[in-house]
């Protein structure tokens, strides 16, 4: 089972215009099935639809339980788009790509 890395960067693609960097945060609770699926889905979506620099942070609430309170997280997995603003919140394991794209406002970006 692949472990869940803390951050993941992709190299900048030379031909594409530089958009502001995206910061995405995925909250999980330990290595559950949903968490892994969510991460996998997220990675794929970012690969396919994000043509800019992006950062995925994975926060394990089991290791940092106070963040559940601080960041108001109830459902797990929860994906939060910190940048660009406005902040967007999506819950679920991100299997429904359409919804994810709409939720992240990526419909407008993809061609």
């Amino acid at each position, binding site marked *: 089972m692949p472990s869940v890395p803390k951050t993941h960067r992709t190299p900048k693609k030379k031909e594409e215009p530089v958009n502001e960097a995206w910061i995405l945060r995925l909250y999980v609770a330990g290595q559950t099935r949903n968490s892994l699926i969510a991460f996998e889905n997220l990675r794929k979506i970012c690969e396919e639809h994000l043509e800019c620099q992006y950062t995925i942070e994975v926060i394990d609430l089991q290791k940092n339980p106070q963040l559940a309170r601080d960041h108001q997280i109830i459902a797990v997995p929860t994906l939060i788009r910190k940048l660009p603003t406005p902040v967007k919140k999506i*819950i679920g394991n991100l299997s429904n790509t359409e919804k994810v794209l709409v939720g992240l406002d990526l419909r407008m970006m993809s061609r």
Partner: protein
Amino acid sequence: MEFVVRGITDYQEPGVFIAFEEKIDDLRKNFKSMGFDLDELVRGKKLVLDHITIDRSEIAETGEYDLEGLFIRLGAMIDEVGAKRVAIDTLEALFSGFSNEAILRSELRRLFLWLKDRGVTAVVTGERGDGTITKYGLEEYVADCVITLDHRLMNQIATRRLRIVKYRGSIHGTDEYPFLISSDGISVLPITSLSLTHKASAERISTGIPRLDTMLGVKGYYRGSSILVSGQAGTGKTSIAATFIDAACRRGERCLFFIFEESESQLLRNMKSIGINLEPWVKTGLLKFHAVRPTAYSLEMHLSVMLKLIGEFGPRVVAVDPISNLYPIGDDIQVRSMLMRLIDFAKALQITGLFTNLSNNTDAGAYAVEPTEMHVSSLMDTWLILKNVEGNGERNRAFTIIKSRGMVHSNQLREFVLSDKGIQLLDVYKGREGVFFGSSRMAQESREIDDRLRRNEETERKKREIESKRKLMEIEIEMLREKYAREEKDMKILIGQDISRERAEAEIAREIATQRQVDR
């Protein structure tokens, strides 16, 4: 919140309160009015308050998820203070926040099992459904106990009620119980919890009117008994109550006076005019008044306030003037049950209660009693009815003791006056022509005095007459005696003469015979 806070203050069990709807500041402010200082409890690390926002518009659901975040949060909060009590207000918020009901329901089931595993007692709120206990059927998951709350309007006064719908593993009262939210939390007043186990005292206390004490088996009311003083308007009920209170204060006993008709200063002034000065007792703190319009709040609230005041002040005597003002707020049954609870409460504490009641029957005879009064009177140990006796163009005050349990009491209709020396019972004026009151009694009194004088004179006269007759008789007897004595003498002389004549004749006859020498 009451559950959590009392757990901390009364049972030393730390608690967690999660609010989905109210913000923490609002919670602090709102509960301050109930006497809960949440800040202090949080500072003392006994209470964790948290607010969780769920805004549907923020969230898109993109696949499967669970509510582990909530569990983690809860877990952290519980661990923070070692909580034994958890309150969640309200779970309905989850339903409006997340659209996948299937996931929600399974998570809720998991939540309650999880809470149970952690050994905490959890109170969860939910909204009432139409026809179902909760809107979303939460009660299926909540295992052990379900309580429903209700807020109803009755006679334009709002009452809150609660009912225990189910309680696993224990017998529970199934009735609806009214409850109150007041400045020191929630109080519930179930009727059925009162049993008739209060002790009966044999001590007697004065009514404040010595002659009334005499009428009541020579000693007065029993301590801890309930006394009803009823009568029409202006018959003197409040005065009787005030006299009783005055007497109790003189004995150094604390008194609590609930008034529903007048204000404290009004009553003080009115009683002063008949020589009952209650002000000193108020000043020294022996007497406390509580004056309020009956329509100010519900019967339950009245009862709760009264019980609370009695508990705080600790009086030995309580007076309520008048109870008839409570009838408009509820129906007969409710008023009666409220009084019953009040009286039971007082009796359990050996507090003597005096209740005045305004009777309305002006046309029927003075002893005609309304049905409500009849019901209430059965709760009372002693019952005095005051009435105005009309006649001769005036009205005079009188009363009678209808009943007094446990003692022999007078059955006289007794006249009394309210003078500036207080209540005074007048002598029962029973002339040969019946009982009299008022000025007609005075007239009758003077009439009878005249009569008596006349009779005396008559008697004297007769005596003198007899005396003179006797004297006459004696003189006559004397005369008769003398006459008889004379006649006797005469008779004796005559008889003597007769005898001597006879002898003389006999002598002569013998002599003649001798001369004739006759043979006999």
